[in-house]
């Protein structure tokens, strides 16, 4: 009885805390400007199914893809098992699904054990890639202390959780063989039966181990849930909405700023009256709140995998730009803005901004807009859009483009070409035939 009450209290607290923190992230995302991503739901569902559920963009790196798939499948399927743990925890029952499911239950538990083993293998592989093989992709200026330990924490937590799960089953298995207490014969233990010989033979110590692992496993999962909002591992949730709201246009297409269209039309035709007299706002983005909610959602979805950065031509050739850093900076800044709101109220402004305090101009001007990053991202994140928005701010609000680009602008404006040639000479190429 006490155990049940304790369990319900922990469960409720975990759910409350998680929804509070997830709610904060939601609020932060909605600090972004509006953008319409509601068109073409059929294609959106399809994109989500392919990319988030089907993980089709992971396959470019086969080892990572297979290992990630183990963890991913393990995560989803073991959650079914967590459902049983929850019910058992609340009602004080034991393996409640075993009766109604019968032999299917044995099969399921056996399957879960294999998955747990695969997850263990994958986590150990990932840990050694990061810490022993030291893949270049996982270094870089933006990969500071926190992102690196974040990744390690998660992998270690998963290893502990899976070990607890298997040890729990091993003890349960032994207790079943002893016909001890309520430990009915249920489940099959293809993996944990190898652990069983290592456990003591006394029923009471076995029960202690079984209970201990049960609590560790479930409390661990709830703690993990509450760690997510502070971690890049939030992607296990956000990958789904993030891919649903993907950019469906050709990658080469940049948005046409509607506010500019109105001004240009008014310049060309003084009698033109814009349809929507929206607030004037800023051209481009200086800070995170000038970006759209989709940009901000992407910042929280970024898994810091560095696939974008490893294909970025600017980064490859040693320039400062790293598209991953653009995403991480955006997340750090919007989190900071959100914390300011929590502390000082919603009108509080600090004297910082995404531009200059986080992202330098040198980074912005190094981009060739080649879309290698957007193509490489396994969850369809678009760092390029943020870069362009910030260039827009620098050029249109501040007139601070590099001098050579200003030259190009005036050539286009005066001669209709980015070079200093007269438009009267446009057909000269015909001459040398």
């Amino acid at each position: 009885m006490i155990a049940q009450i304790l369990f319900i209290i922990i469960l409720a607290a975990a759910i409350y805390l998680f929804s509070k923190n997830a709610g904060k992230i939601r609020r932060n995302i909605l600090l972004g400007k509006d953008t319409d991503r509601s068109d073409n739901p059929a294609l959106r569902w399809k994109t989500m199914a392919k990319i988030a559920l089907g993980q089709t963009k992971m396959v470019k790196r086969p080892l990572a893809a297979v290992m990630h798939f183990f963890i991913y499948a393990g995560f989803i399927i073991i959650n079914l098992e967590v459902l049983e743990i929850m019910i058992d925890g609340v009602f004080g029952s034991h393996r409640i699904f075993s009766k109604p499911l019968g032999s299917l239950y044995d099969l399921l538990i056996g399957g879960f054990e294999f998955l747990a083993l695969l997850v263990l293998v994958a986590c150990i592989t990932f840990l050694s890639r990061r810490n022993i093989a030291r893949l270049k992709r996982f270094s870089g200026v933006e990969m500071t202390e926190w992102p690196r330990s974040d990744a390690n924490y998660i992998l270690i937590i998963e290893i502990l959780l899976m070990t607890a799960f298997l040890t729990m089953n091993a003890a349960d298995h032994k207790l079943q063989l002893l016909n001890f207490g309520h430990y009915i014969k249920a489940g099959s233990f293809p993996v944990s039966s190898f652990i069983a010989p290592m456990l003591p033979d006394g029923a009471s110590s076995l029960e202690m181990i079984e209970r201990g692992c049960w609590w560790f496993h479930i409390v661990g999962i709830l703690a993990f849930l509450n760690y997510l909002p502070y971690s890049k591992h939030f992607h296990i949730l956000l990958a789904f909405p993030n891919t649903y709201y993907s950019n469906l246009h050709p990658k080469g297409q940049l948005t046409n700023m509607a506010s500019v269209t109105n001004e240009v039309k008014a310049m060309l035709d003084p009698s033109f009256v814009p349809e929507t007299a929206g607030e004037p706002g800023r051209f481009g983005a200086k800070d995170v709140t000038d970006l759209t909610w989709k940009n901000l959602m992407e910042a929280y979805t970024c898994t810091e995998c560095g696939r974008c950065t490893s294909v970025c031509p600017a980064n490859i050739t040693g320039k400062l730009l790293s598209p991953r850093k653009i995403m991480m900076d955006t997340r750090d800044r919007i989190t900071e803005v959100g914390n300011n709101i929590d502390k000082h109220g919603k009108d509080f402004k600090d004297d910082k901004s995404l531009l200059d305090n986080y992202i330098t101009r040198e980074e912005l001007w190094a981009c060739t807009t080649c879309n290698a990053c957007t193509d490489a991202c396994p969850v369809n994140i678009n760092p390029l859009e943020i870069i362009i928005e910030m260039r827009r701010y620098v050029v249109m609000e501040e007139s601070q483009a590099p001098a050579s680009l200003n030259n190009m602008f005036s050539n286009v404006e005066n001669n209709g070409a980015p070079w200093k040639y007269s438009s009267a000479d446009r057909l000269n190429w015909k001459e040398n035939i």
Partner: protein
Amino acid sequence: MNHEPLTVPTVAEMAAEGKKPEILFWVGCAGSFDERAQKITRDICKILNHVGIGFAVLGTEESCTGDPAKRAGNEFLFQMQAMANIQVLDAYEIKKIVTGCPHCFNTIKNEYPGLGGNYEVIHHSQLIQQLIDEGKLKAEGGESFKGKKITYHDPCYLGRGNNVYEAPRAALEVLDAELVEMKRCKSNGLCCGAGGAQMFKEPEKGKKDINIERMTDVLESKASVVAAACPFCMTMLSDGVKNENKEQEIQVLDIAEITVRANGL
């Protein structure tokens, strides 16, 4: 080689005769002014003349699409250019456009519709593919590429930007040549370093320039011809080859030039 004189009417000239072109050839700024790109422009005209497509160019009425301005963040300048161009195109009731540059292609195809300019836009590699499919271009009677190692450099704005990967390759497949792919190709291709207005400024400081990095892929492929499909890539790749002192061994040719040579036009 035979040298029929090229006929390149402007849309205005055609209009004066009460005619409209079947297709408008959008030459682009590089194609108009850059010496190397001018050759490609003429070759595209040769192809159009050869197959008898009634085309025209805007000539002095053409203006920059606004692509470099837009990607550098100057949306005002871009939209001014776009609206002015759309006015000209619509005045001549242009329906179909072929471009000699992936940047013009992308901008007119994807970004003009939102500003009221709706046209069917194709890149010259797509036109060439179509003509090959129709049997109008054969890769016979001209320079033989037999036994040559040819590789193709994907322009970002054609490949990743618009998913055009096959058309330019189709133009090479008809040649009796050995086609090799570079290590980084198709959606994994490496940028030449010129897009996003980089063409018009010095690169930021780093270990090396992007076109030099791309040369490692070219050299590794051991190709003697690098096929390009974009005037900016052409500049960058040619500079890269020069930088390696390999002008004697490696030629950089546009898909249109290769087609013209193979067909003996």
